[in-house]
């Protein structure tokens, strides 16, 4: 049984809710796109694989400056290292996993979030299409990306 649009959109809602909590509702949601041939990766990426009622992946990818600003907003200080960039991304993806698991229960299995910089260590299989939701905060970009198997639409 494929997920309903509301359920699929829940991933975006959870991500936005958390980012807006940190930024004081300053995240600007730009017009989304559907990509057929490429995946977009920025400086740091937090990737979660899905199995069960939905097969595929979701990830958030963001520029270092985007994470820098998030880090500063949370900790009230400006220094950001490679490690703290990964920590911020781990925190975001961990929150997504926590909330989505709570929402869907046992019907949907989520992998441990995998955080990497620049490009993935292991190749990601390109699904037929990915949904890309650009996000903007203080002129810095992040992208929420979702790739579902085509069987999701049967």
């Amino acid at each position: 049984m494929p997920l309903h649009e509301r359920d699929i959109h829940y991933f975006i809602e959870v991500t936005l809710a958390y980012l807006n909590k940190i930024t004081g509702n300053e995240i600007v949601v730009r017009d989304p796109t559907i990509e057929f041939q490429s995946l977009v990766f920025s400086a740091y990426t937090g990737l979660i694989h899905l199995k069960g009622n939905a097969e595929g992946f979701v990830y958030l990818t963001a520029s270092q400056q985007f994470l820098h600003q998030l880090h500063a907003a949370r900790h009230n200080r400006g220094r950001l290292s490679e490690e703290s960039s990964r920590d911020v991304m781990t925190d975001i993806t961990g929150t997504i996993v926590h909330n989505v698991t709570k929402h869907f229960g046992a019907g949907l299995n989520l992998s441990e979030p995998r955080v990497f910089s620049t490009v993935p260590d292991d190749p990601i299989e390109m699904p037929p299409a990915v949904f890309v939701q650009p996000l903007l905060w203080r002129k810095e970009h992040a992208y929420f990306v979702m790739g579902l198997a085509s069987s999701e639409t049967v």
Partner: protein
Amino acid sequence: MTGTEIYKRTDAYESEARTIRLHAPQWKLLLAYDGQRSLAEVALSAGVSFAEALPLTEKFLGSGWIAEQPITLDQYLKRTGAPDISAIGAAVLPAVVLHEPKPDAVVAPPSPPPLIPKSTITLSNPPATPPPISTPLPIKTNHGPMRLSAVVDYITSLVGNTALGQILVYRVFLRVPSELLQAEEIASVLLVNDTSLIRSEALQKAIADAVLEVAKRPLPDGVYAAA
């Protein structure tokens, strides 16, 4: 505005009609409001995108030339395909007004297409070398290319919520064979104001089939440009 609203021209329009000055495409849209079809359907029939129709509709509302047409529960259920009121277990008196007109509603203009920063790295699939596609016999059609923006707007309007409608568009395009998209050099779809025209009849059919399969609705003729 979600595209599901229904508008009709007002008495004020009738009295001012001879003095109104508009561009021809705006007239086409203004004259298409019939108190029967949704905004999305009216936009399609007038040959303008949903995004273009929104500010014009706001303008017409602001001028008092059109007003939102409330509909009854029966009309709403008929439009959404529910068989009858008893099917949803509701005992409702007839002629219930679902919502009042909101002439003061303000809709922000659509934001421009997203800019991918240069620092962003993309991983691409292998170059788009279309695999052999079985070529069907040419089918004589009396319509022109398919307007991708009209397809997106139509699918989005079916849900009544833009964000969820865009997810439905995504689910539809998951069903469209990638080789057909590559052959037409469609690498992405902008979910607002995509200007692409689909000329391949095989791809047009695949998109129409996917819409029917996923959204359970046939594509209206309005998604095709004139031949």
